[in-house]
């Protein structure tokens, strides 16, 4: 499979009242054509900012992309002018956000919001645009498309709005969709519908996807490869099956262990990750997870670990104490 997107040592910072926040602190990952890759982590880990960086939608001047490369189909997006970048956004790479209501224009009809991009990007006529919009609504399972296109966002339920966002994302046949917590605001039965729809469409149309989420279950069901993020860095990466079967980074282990699971007998007590998430404006010198880590040694506080092989091919983790983690996990 050919590499579609390569993010290489990306750094994105924000200047805030509390100081400079290193939201994305040197991350590298790839997405192959047609593949679904997950960025998983908790609030403030940098997963959303890394997607916004790919779209070059980091709000300046407070935020800026400091360094790195974002190579999409052989072109470094960070070197493109604004005009050329506009041809990428929505046309080549589309985005689906968590809260569809805030990404839809409340005073434009649904039809207009879908056809606008078609007319700009694909130079379609009004009637061509309309025909494509009808087709798109059908594709995402919205019944009675002619009537629905004349309606406004407030006429749609949360689940239906997210279907609309997916239709809009697919409008110009992009090669890549970045979905930022696409189902977090939805109820669980609707979440299942939307995720099935996204998976079905991505397979049928061959669109690659980056799913950004905090939900380890969603990742397990839908992702081919997984990047676990903590405090602006990728701390572990593997194929989904490998990551869940052999988690290696103490943070990944902690996350998997802290959630109650329906497929296992109920445990008497949950095992949380102790401590608080880090303050991104005051990150420690070494490993950002060290203050909460049960495997911490002196070196962790001095020197930030880099991604190193941690098992099967393609499985990497950033931890100085990997060997000890592996030994202890085997014994357990």
């Amino acid at each position, binding site marked *: 499979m050919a590499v579609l997107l390569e993010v290489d040592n990306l750094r994105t910072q924000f200047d805030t009242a509390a100081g400079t926040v290193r939201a994305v602190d040197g991350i590298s990952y790839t997405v192959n054509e047609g593949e679904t890759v997950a960025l998983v982590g*908790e*609030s403030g880990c940098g997963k959303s900012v890394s997607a916004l960086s790919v779209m070059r939608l980091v709000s300046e001047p407070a935020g800026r992309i400091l360094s790195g490369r974002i190579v999409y189909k052989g072109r470094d997006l960070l070197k493109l002018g604004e005009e050329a970048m506009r041809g990428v956004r929505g046309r080549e790479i589309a985005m689906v956000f968590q809260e569809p209501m805030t990404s839809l224009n409340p005073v434009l009809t649904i039809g207009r919001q879908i056809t606008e991009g078609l007319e700009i990007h694909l130079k379609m006529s009004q009637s061509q645009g309309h025909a494509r919009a009808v087709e798109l609504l059908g594709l995402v399972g919205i019944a009675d498309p002619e009537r629905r296109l004349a309606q406004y966002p407030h006429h749609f*339920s949360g*689940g*239906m709005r997210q279907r609309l966002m997916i239709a809009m994302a697919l409008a110009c046949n992009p090669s890549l969709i970045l979905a930022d917590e696409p189902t977090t605001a939805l*109820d*669980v*039965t*609707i*979440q*299942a*519908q939307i*995720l*099935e729809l996204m998976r079905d469409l991505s397979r049928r149309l061959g669109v690659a996807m980056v799913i950004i989420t*905090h*939900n*380890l*279950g*969603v*990742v*397990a*069901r839908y992702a081919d490869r997984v990047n676990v993020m903590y405090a602006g860095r990728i701390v572990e990466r593997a194929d*989904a*099956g490998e990551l*869940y*079967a052999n988690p290696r980074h103490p943070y990944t282990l*902690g*996350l*998997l262990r*802290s*959630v*109650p*699971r*329906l*497929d296992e007998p*109920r*445990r008497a*007590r*949950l*095992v*949380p*990750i*102790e401590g*608080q*998430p880090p303050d991104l404006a005051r990150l420690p010198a070494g490993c950002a997870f060290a203050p909460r880590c049960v495997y911490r040694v002196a070196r962790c506080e001095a020197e930030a670990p880099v991604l190193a092989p941690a098992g099967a091919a393609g499985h990497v983790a950033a931890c100085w104490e990997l060997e000890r983690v592996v030994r202890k996990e085997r014994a357990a």
Partner: protein
Amino acid sequence: MSEVLLQVDSLVKHFSIGGGIVGGHAGQVRAVDGVSFSIRRGETLGLVGESGCGKTTTGRCILLLERPTSGRIMFEGVDLVTLDEAALRAVRRRIQVIFQDPYSSLNPRMTIGQILAEPLEVHGIVREKKARAERVRELLTQVGLLPQHALRYPHQLSGGQRQRVGIARALAMEPALIVCDEPVSALDVSIQAQIINLLEDLQARYGLTYLFIAHDLSVVRHISDRVAVMYLGKVVEITDRTRLYEEPLHPYTRALLSAVPIPDPELEARREHTVLRGEVPSAVNPPSGCVFHPRCPIAVDRCAAAVPPLREIRRDHWAACDLA
């Protein structure tokens, strides 16, 4: 088996919606439509369901933040619905709440110490100022915070720490019952387990009773002794934790459980998923008969005709489905 602390009986809460050109009566939202359950002292009852199912309104009725349209709420042998304001004040102390978003339920201009001391003073629980400060320190320690947190403001704490303050404030009243309304759903995954463990520890130490309202079925299974599943204003199934998760009887409960993604890709690939069609209908105009029938994978003609009563299908296992 211990005594029943709270007995909710045929609870109904309808909200009228204004509307129409002259501000007339446009209809009614049947938020809670005949809900009955009981909670024994020291027990945790989980109340699960999706948004709009009436679980939060049920909690608000028990907290007397809403006046029920009809029904009884028996708490320690007294029907709360019949009490006047003065009598309610005394009861309110005994029933406390923990909200989803501790940030919006803590006054940003007060220190944590002031937030915790105020109800102690207002309710005359600790009258002397010095003793109040001492009690605040004690409460902070009980919820895993430090005495010096009393001097901080809510914005200086993390989400998990703020939820600990919310719990301390509820504890300050020495309640018998705490209504926990989505107490961990706004928190990061790694912090949720900390708060759940804290709630369990406090329950064991003080013999607290919880009504645990949540949409996360895995969390509810972990913390609850018994679980009630709500859909569109009604309880569709209620039983103990083990039976609900191992032998669910109502098709809605089954669909809910199957929709929860499990963090294991191999299992997920093998598992059968019942993806429900459609969406939750409006509580203004609920479907006829069984409110779940338009989405139900096993519905037959008669489901649209008559409302199935909640019946005891197996011992202590109740479900509102004719086909169960």
